[in-house]
């Protein structure tokens, strides 16, 4: 293979109180996809920031084509051909696709005005190169997350980037969308672009990448050819120990029916949904994005009022029209987006845990600070939430710990039913396994859990039973024993029990 075109040697970077990177090396060749892996906090993001000129390293060298360069700013990085495709997409929602692609570099006519026609043509060309069929005049705010990602990629491609960085590009995508994206990335590689690929999804690494570099606690662990290692090797490199293989599912002995849903409908979103949820059961809810899974969760939780249908809890019909009533009826919801919906980031862990049931430790509306603290401290300990104290603002916690805080706040309400929507999105592999174990423990203690997830291995590994939604309907039900990825996908795509 060719010599490395981009080389990082002995990179170190410290922040007050923590050494984010120490003596890390990395290299990237033209036409390769190089995975960068490590748990949250391993130093991946810091390394990428250094590469993109967002932060200077404390020491170390960056070479491009063998010559030392200094990447003082994102602009310089762009000039050197380094282009990040951001995780938190930095697109302008009110502008068109074409305008976003050429933002700041719009083609102009002789009078110095933006040449709209030329811009649209050029945009169409770039999109065509990527093999997607999108109208370049469409407004970005109306696109799906997957489509926005395509726009971000198109922007990078249009700058003739030599090195592209993908940070968790598939974390919010469905399987099918991910496949399209991966195809696009392969195409870029074949055109000679060097690609750094960050993802927590193991199967993608093996499917897509040529080499992998692992960081742990800010230190370089190893660079390997993906073909020469096994999944176990990789996991061991990342966490520095082996994770017990997903614990064999306990013999499903689920109890009485806790939740009965009959004929739940809401125009355009939910069509005649009926199912039962048992005590001690983890019921997986799968389906493509937009199939109505989140809407179903919202309807059960009173945040979306259905037009028809009834809900029974322990055999009694309940009328749930607000989240407040849902909480009183014994339902908890761990929402899809923990930062926007689950937590008040600027408040303490304690305030977040206490939020759904302040009246429990209040008298005449006055909150007992001591009881709120006791409750929070108990759950921080029970769920092993890593935080210096319950007074720490939730924003300073890692993703996995933030998710634990959201779960803690619902456990504290002692719910009969816990709905979890994408419980492990964006958390690292170690934390993910711990969250799965936590869900299993809760179910073993008798909690009825409805788990929505786009992460297929997660659905298969954790659920006792799987429901699949397609276009607002329940398209199929699978027991844990018969469930395969193919069977679930077949239902999710509306093909029925074909396989």
């Amino acid at each position, binding site marked *: 293979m060719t010599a490395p075109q981009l080389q990082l040697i002995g990179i170190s970077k410290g*922040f*007050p*109180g*923590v050494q*984010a990177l120490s003596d890390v090396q990395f290299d990237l060749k033209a036409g390769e996809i190089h995975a960068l892996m490590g748990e*949250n*906090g391993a*130093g*991946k*993001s*810091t390394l990428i*920031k250094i590469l993109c000129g967002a932060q200077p390293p404390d020491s170390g060298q960056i070479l491009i084509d063998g010559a030392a360069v200094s990447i003082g700013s994102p602009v310089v990085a762009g000039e050197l051909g380094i282009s990040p495709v951001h*995780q*938190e997409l930095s697109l302008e929602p009110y502008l068109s696709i074409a305008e976003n692609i050429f933002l700041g570099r719009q083609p102009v006519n002789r009078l110095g005005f933006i040449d709209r026609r030329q811009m649209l043509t050029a945009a169409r060309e770039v999109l065509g190169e990527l093999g997607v069929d999108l109208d370049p005049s469409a407004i970005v705010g109306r696109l799906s997350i997957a489509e926005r990602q395509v726009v971000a990629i198109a922007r990078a491609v249009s700058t003739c980037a030599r090195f592209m960085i993908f940070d968790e590009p598939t974390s919010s995508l469905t399987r099918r969308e991910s496949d399209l994206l991966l195809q696009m990335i392969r195409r870029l590689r074949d055109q000679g672009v060097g690609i750094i690929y960050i993802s927590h999804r193991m199967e993608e690494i093996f499917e897509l990448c040529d080499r992998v570099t692992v960081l742990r*606690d800010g230190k370089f662990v190893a660079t390997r050819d993906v073909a020469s290692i096994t999944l176990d090797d990789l996991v061991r490199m990342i966490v*520095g*120990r082996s994770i017990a293989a997903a614990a064999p599912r306990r013999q499903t002995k689920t109890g009485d029916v806790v939740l009965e849903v009959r004929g739940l409908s809401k125009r355009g979103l939910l069509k005649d949904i009926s199912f039962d949820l048992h005590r001690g059961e983890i019921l997986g809810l799968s389906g493509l994005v937009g199939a109505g899974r989140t809407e179903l969760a919202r309807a059960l*939780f009173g*945040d979306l009022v259905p037009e028809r249908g009834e809900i029974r809890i322990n055999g009694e019909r309940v009328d749930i029209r*607000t*989240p*407040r009533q*849902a*909480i009183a009826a014994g339902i908890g*919801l761990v*929402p899809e987006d923990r930062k*926007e*919906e*689950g*937590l*008040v*980031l*600027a*408040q*303490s862990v304690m305030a977040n845990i206490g*939020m*759904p*049931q*302040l*009246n429990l430790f*209040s008298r005449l*509306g*006055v*909150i007992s*600070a001591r009881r709120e603290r006791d409750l929070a401290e108990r759950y921080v300990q029970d769920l*092993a*939430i*890593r*935080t*210096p*104290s319950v*007074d*720490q603002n939730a*924003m*300073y*916690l*890692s*993703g996995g*710990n933030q998710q634990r805080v959201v779960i803690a*706040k619902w456990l504290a309400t002692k719910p009969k039913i816990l709905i979890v929507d994408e419980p492990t999105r964006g958390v690292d592999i170690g934390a993910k396994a711990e969250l799965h174990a936590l869900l299993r423990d809760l179910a073993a203690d008798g909690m009825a859990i409805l788990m929505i997830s786009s992460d297929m291995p997660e659905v298969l590994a954790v659920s006792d039973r799987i429901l699949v939604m397609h276009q607002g309907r329940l398209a199929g039900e699978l027991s844990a024993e018969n469930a395969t990825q193919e069977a679930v996908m077949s239902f999710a795509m509306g093909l029925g029990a074909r396989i």
Partner: protein
Amino acid sequence: MNSQEVDPSRRPEGPSNKVPPAKSGGRRRHWSEPLRNHTALVLLIVLVIAGGMLSDVFLTPRNLLNILWAVSLLGIVSLGQTVLLLTARFDMSVAGVVGLAGIVTVLAQINGFGLFASIGFGLGSGLLVGLCNGVLVLATGANPFLVTLAVNLLVYSLALSLTQSKTLYATIPEFNLLGRGQLFGFLHYSVIVFLALAAGLQFVLRRTIPGRTIYVAGLNEVAGRLSGLRLQITKLSAFVLCSGLAALTGIIMTSRLNSTVASSGFGMEFDSIIAAVLGGTSLFGGRGGTLRTIVGVVVLGVINNLLVLLNVPSEAQQIAKGLVFLAVVLADSALRRS
């Protein structure tokens, strides 16, 4: 993302998670909160020291009490504004309400109602305006700034037409006591009302469910809603409280002067926001408190007082206020970004 990378709480200790509770300042947050954002307090101390050097009169107890007395009315309005600001909303109609409440009170007296009834009418007019503000803003989702600005115009016009643009005089002699009376012969009732309200509201904000809900309304309404907090009714109450306190101010002001005009609250809509933000309450909601607002209004009062003592022309007084406010707004934005 970076905050995760440098998060010191996530140390590589394997499965162990027994991180000892840090001896950080976190635990002592509640009482030190008003001091956390030191800018206004530092500004106040600097001003007081400068004032003492520049003027012989400034540091006399009589003058300091005078400053408190002068700012107490704006102060009460600012407390309501502070609560609303915490929910990331504004009330631009407080100026109109100050005028209206005074006029309604005096008109009630002219029409033969007793002392308490007339005050009740005055307060009621304010509460009603607050209810309108709240319902309009919350039901339509319209911009609170613009809605209350429009309501301010309406309220002011109503006040003008009620008085036919004349000055009205209170008819009940005891009414005077509220605005001019002093405890122990030196502490004005309005100052006591202001400080007591500030302390009481701080308690409500920090220690009660509605108070907690106010902060969540300003920080993350979705999370609050999904946690079952009563956001709508709490936000509505904040609007009603804000207008109610403006009405109280109008009544005390009328009592102090024994007369009132429709424009008596002129400028208070902006001054109250300036005072609240100066004290350290964020324009973007969720950060601040009413104790801070005491510092904010006192800073404004000290600046005014000093400029008067030093015989600075009134145009320059406005310039000083404008510059102080600009500095504070810029500091607030910078703080929010960091």
